[in-house]
């Protein structure tokens, strides 16, 4: 019985990987410049340059960002024992926005400068949220949520102040566009950092899956099962949040992937297990890839990717819920 279940789980994962492969291929070929496979093999320089500097990095980023957000989403929902918990809960995105706005206003370094500022902003936000929760010394994860809320609103205030200072024509527009989130203009240089961080943190998180599930229990119960709740929760949250910070600092805020992918994975696999983590990541990748393909093909100009993550994600989630009800 155990083995049958296992095969079924693996089947789901294989199917999603196949879909991901197809989407990846589509993503490589979608865009203003028409890319054809024969051109690439013939060594057409423009085609190769478009492929390596634009399409390939962009598609890779979509896959890795989707995967990261999907896995992190499930980690957050488990640790906070709340199906609505998302990385935003401890102020990552708000911090990144504040950092990015700061970068746009005061850093001369172009996109790299903005990315660095956004990353710094989100890491500062998270560290202050977790630090604050340790000062409060509440017994439960609720103190983390409360400190997160405080930091989040503080970051939003900073963002507002920065917006007020910004030149409305150029800088304000740049800030707003950054906040909307997009995979536009991502080059190979940009993706090395988030891919590295995501890969390392993901590996550690997936290896720690048993501990993550144990953290979903009440604190007393987990402690008496031999879990050092405080330190472990801190480490896991820090790892998970680093992933989000690394991704968001490059892409801007991407909504909904971290919320919908875990739910889809859980509805498909029912009981939480390590496969759920992987599946959630893969679903996140597919969702983000498809959303990104649509974002650059639907209208003449690029649209924010978040528009499509929710436009695709919501009906899919509803369909899964209806299907679950019927069963």
């Amino acid at each position, binding site marked *: 019985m155990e083995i049958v279940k296992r095969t079924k789980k693996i089947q789901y994962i294989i199917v999603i990987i196949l879909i991901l492969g197809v989407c990846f291929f589509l993503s490589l070929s979608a865009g203003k410049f028409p890319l054809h496979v024969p051109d690439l093999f013939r060594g057409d320089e423009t085609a190769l340059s478009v492929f390596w500097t634009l399409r390939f990095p962009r598609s890779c980023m979509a896959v890795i960002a989707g995967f990261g957000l999907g896995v992190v989403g499930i980690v957050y929902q488990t640790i906070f024992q709340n199906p609505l918990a998302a990385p935003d809960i401890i102020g990552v995105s708000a911090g990144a926005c504040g950092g990015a706005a700061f970068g746009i206003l005061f850093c001369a370094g172009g996109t790299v400068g903005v990315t660095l500022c956004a990353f710094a902003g989100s890491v500062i936000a998270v560290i202050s949220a977790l630090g604050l929760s340790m000062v409060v010394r509440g017994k439960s994860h609720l103190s983390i949520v409360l400190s997160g809320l405080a930091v989040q609103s503080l970051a939003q205030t900073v963002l507002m102040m920065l917006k007020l200072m910004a030149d409305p024509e150029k800088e304000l527009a740049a800030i707003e566009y950054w906040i909307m989130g997009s995979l536009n203009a991502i080059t190979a240089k940009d993706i090395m950092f988030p891919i590295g961080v995501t890969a390392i943190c993901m590996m550690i998180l997936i290896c720690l899956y048993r501990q993550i*599930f144990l953290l979903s229990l009440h604190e007393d119960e987990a*402690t*008496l099962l031999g*879990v*050092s709740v405080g330190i472990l929760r801190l480490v896991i949250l820090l790892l998970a949040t680093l992933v989000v910070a690394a991704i968001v600092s490059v892409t801007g805020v991407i909504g909904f992937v971290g919320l919908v992918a875990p739910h889809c994975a859980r509805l498909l696999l029912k*009981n939480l297990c390590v496969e759920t983590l992987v599946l959630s990541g893969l679903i996140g990748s597919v969702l983000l890839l498809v959303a990104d393909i649509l974002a650059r093909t639907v209208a003449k100009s690029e649209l924010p990717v978040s528009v499509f993550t929710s436009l695709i994600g919501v009906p899919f989630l509803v369909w899964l819920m209806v299907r679950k009800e019927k069963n």
Partner: protein
Amino acid sequence: MKEYNTIQRERECFFEIHNITAGYGKKEMIHNINFSLNSHTLTCLIGANGSGKTTLLKSIANQLSHQGTCSIEGESLEQKSVKELARDVSYIPQKTGISISMSVLDVVLMGYNARLKLLENPSKKQIQQACEVLSKIGLEKEIDTDYLNLSEGQKQLVILARMMIENTKILLLDEPDSALDVPNRFRMMSNIRHMVDTEEKAGILCLHDPMLALEFCDQLVLLKAGKCIGILYPKKDSIGVMEKAFCQVYGNVSLMECFDKEGKRHFSMIGI
């Protein structure tokens, strides 16, 4: 000299609870509780709601800051690391905190955590053992079921199975029978009794049903408003002494002896 005596005395006992005082915030819930347990025995905490039973259990499990010490074979529980404590003490709270869909088997496998390394997974043998324990308590069909879809009674049995897997010296159970029907109640108690009888273990539990306590436990600690007002030994004490003690806790009650077909002594209690 005094210290030496204390240590000496603790060595003689399997598990000793010494001067425990604890509470929430400034409010003191239990005051100066002392008792000791031998191995192979079950102790039941008896008392009305709010008399401090759960507070005492939580203090023993070191989940509540308290004064006084609990020591197992002379070693103080307060000084143990999280893992060491988890290897010595297992605890079933009134309500478990599992809020996410998980298979029953995975819940039971959590019991191995204290003996596994951080990144280690349960071995095949351990999984096999967990399945055996589940079939022992009659839940072999539910191995892959979502824990959250079980009935409350089944949930309590699964958590008991997890405790069996934890295999610790001290078992703490806070109303493990609250959602069970009569046959399952007896089944659970005989499982606990069996664990304690066959291995070097001792258990402390809270029960609301004094009959069950009299039937299965070796020692009853009576609590009233956070203080220990007496300790009863159902196998030795006379019925008069016990009735008097129960009256202090429950008000006017009458305790009666009855014998089954094999001549074994049981008790029955009614309120007056």
